[in-house]
């Protein structure tokens, strides 16, 4: 293994990728990254995150190697590999065998095509007002699932915050970690791409009940626009329009509205009270009761979460 690693620098693929990234021709003094590597600055960047020094690292690796090289560990590893392969193959075979007994693919008489989907299709438009039956189903008929699902996103974002949030609000000391360089091509491209993507995302969200799409897909598109903006212009400019405070407010507002709106509709539904929310004319943009507003909420939450993931991974704060 080690031999491979040593030769790797001279290998064709490495040279090629160096050439492609432009690292090959630059003299050491000019290129900031190379220079840092020479002065062991990269390790310092790592040190910023961890309590260990380099010597500790080597010691621990030796410890691990010593542990690994013991005879019985080898046996255990080998046995583990064999057992996993056997287990996996058994599972595949059993499942394949099972699949051959399942109802035929694409058959209209399958058990899954029963009165449930019939009502969704035939009465869905009258009962939910949504032209897109799937949107009507997940946001009205089975709204509790979907509320749970947006909570999954929320909790995932909190989880990533717990894990990666950098507690001191100072910016990271090393450029290598943040790695922002102005790039004229990216900036120019972002200049016209970001608005287009954003508008497209908003379109997908707003038309969620009329056409394919909805809060999740539209929100992901809007999140992509935010990420592109941050890539091109850096986090400092991003922070002027989208700070942690905005993030918290948007997420909080959207999820609270979602929760309250859905509680209202659950409560009235369960107690057989007529809901006061009008369904509107099917096909119009302002129709289908709460679905449009829920889509907007979900879209906002998803966009914030996607951008939040990106920036948390990139530099440890939003």
């Amino acid at each position: 293994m080690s031999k491979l690693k040593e030769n790797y620098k001279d290998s064709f693929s490495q040279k090629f990728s160096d050439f492609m990234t432009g690292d090959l021709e630059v003299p050491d003094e000019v290129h900031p990254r190379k220079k840092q590597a020479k002065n062991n600055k990269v390790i310092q960047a790592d040190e910023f995150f961890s309590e260990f020094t380099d010597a500790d690292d080597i010691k621990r690796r030796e410890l691990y190697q010593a542990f690994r090289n013991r005879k019985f560990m080898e046996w255990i590893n080998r046995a583990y590999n064999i057992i996993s392969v056997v287990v996996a193959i058994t599972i595949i075979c059993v499942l394949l065998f099972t699949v051959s007994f399942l109802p035929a693919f694409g058959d209209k008489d399958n058990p899954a095509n029963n009165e449930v989907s019939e009502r969704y299709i035939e009465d869905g438009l009258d009962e939910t007002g949504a032209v897109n039956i799937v949107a009507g189903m997940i946001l009205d008929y089975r709204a509790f699932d979907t509320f749970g699902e947006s909570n999954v996103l929320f909790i995932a974002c909190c989880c990533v915050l717990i894990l990666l949030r950098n507690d001191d609000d100072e910016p990271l000391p090393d450029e290598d970690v943040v790695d922002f360089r102005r790039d004229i091509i990216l900036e120019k491209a972002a200049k016209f791409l970001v608005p287009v993507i954003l508008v497209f995302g908003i379109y997908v969200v707003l038309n969620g009940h009329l056409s394919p799409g909805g809060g999740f897909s539209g929100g992901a598109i809007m999140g992509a626009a935010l990420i592109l903006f941050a890539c091109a212009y850096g986090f400092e400019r991003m922070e002027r329009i989208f700070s942690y405070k905005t993030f918290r407010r948007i997420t909080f507002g959207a999820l609270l509205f979602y929760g309250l709106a859905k509680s209202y509709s659950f409560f009235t539904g369960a107690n057989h009270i007529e809901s006061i929310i009008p369904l509107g004319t099917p096909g119009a943009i302002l129709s289908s009761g709460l679905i449009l507003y829920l889509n907007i909420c979900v879209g906002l939450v998803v966009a914030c979460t996607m951008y939040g993931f990106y920036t948390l991974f990139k530099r440890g704060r939003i």
Partner: protein
Amino acid sequence: MDFLRNMPFFCIILSMVSAVIISIMSDRVARVFSLCVIGAVSVMSAITFFYVAGVDQSYTYYMGHFPAPWGNEIRVGILEALTATIFSIVMFASVLGGMKRVFIDVAPKKRNLYYIMVDLLLAALLAMIYTNDLFTGYVFIEIMTISACALIMSRDNGHCLVSAMKYMIMSLIGSGLILFGLSMLYDLTGHLLMSNIKEVIAYNVANGRYELPLTITIGLLCVGIAIKSALFPFHSWLPDAYGYSTATSSALLSSLISKGYIFLLIKIMYRVIGMDVIVSTKIGNVFFVFGVIGMIAGSVRAIAQTDVRRMIAYSSVAQIGYIYMGMGLGTELGMMAAIFHIFAHASAKSMMFIAADGLSYVSNDSKEFRDLSGSAIKNPIAGATFTVGACSMIGIPMLAGFISKVCFADAAINAPTVKLVIVMLALAFSTLLNAVYFMRAIISIYRPVRDEDKGVMHKANPLFIVACIIFVALNVFLGTHAQPIIDFIFEGIDMFA
């Protein structure tokens, strides 16, 4: 329609919305708020319980404007309400007792996130208990998994991170299998609602259709949930996660999270597949075998530990083995014993984790037995609580653990002879091992203090004392008033069908 029927819905929505609200609070407000929410949920669950016990029949509750197979719905029976009540009380006491430790262990800016996790965990737990729809169950299983992972890793040390990773990998395999089983079940029956699936399955079984896929599906669901609830061979993440995370997390993980999955499994067995189909597939025997092995292996490993928290963690492995053994007996008595043990273990194990934390608090935050000697004298309340928990685990009369062991033995007598012999031997041996390691722990915490340490008496904080009193009261209540609870469990199982 009675207004009290809305209570379960209020519980779920309150805990979900409160999690969102906590996200903009400071940590001081957040913990009071979250505690209030859990308290309110306990009270509301208790009201639900008395209401259902009063009208003496279960009811379904629409989540939305549409009736059952089209919309989501939850179902409230007596067993669900009882479980929700006991779980939320245990949760209240665990959060209360471990509050100070959370303050120490979790980084300042992340404390309110911790309480978000606690609230969403409560929501997921309640939704899983009450749900009448398999897919809702799946979504909330995922919420529970993620919040459990967050609870483990909220304390920033290596052990917690590694065990969180292990936990994630294990539970993702589990959720993969569950989701696969669920899609196959949907394919075979065309429904996601529990009662409709059961009807179609009964029809299919009667006509001999799709027998093999059904068996595989049941296997996938059961194995998936067994992996998630850390049944014996899948427990590798458990000791580290329980041993090193903050005290509240350990208490919640051991007493509620694995139990929530098991409760869902019981619900699936009765309400989705039907008990007669489950018995005919012999999946119970698999549970039985692994449960018995887990009982012994967990206890043996617990003896070898020098760390009190890890010892309790391995004891949890053994107790989960007990529960699966009861379920594996395949009789109603066995199931009742398993459910009672869920309650008994929930009340005892969280108590022990909180008390052990109180003990290590007076011994320089060490969890090793050699440093803990005399800690019960310095902190008498924690010592007494720990002792009560240990006695309950061993099975001393008047406490909950005794009743559950009696129930297991009672169930075994009505089981086939082979199982009777195995259960009796395993119970005896495991109780002996329990006694060995818990007695060792009690003796070491009550060992007299050296002269120079004698002056340092610890002044326990009032929250901790309240939590301990709640735990002990719950445990003694379960131990002394077991008969009505057993009756309620039987009634609840009847309502399942």
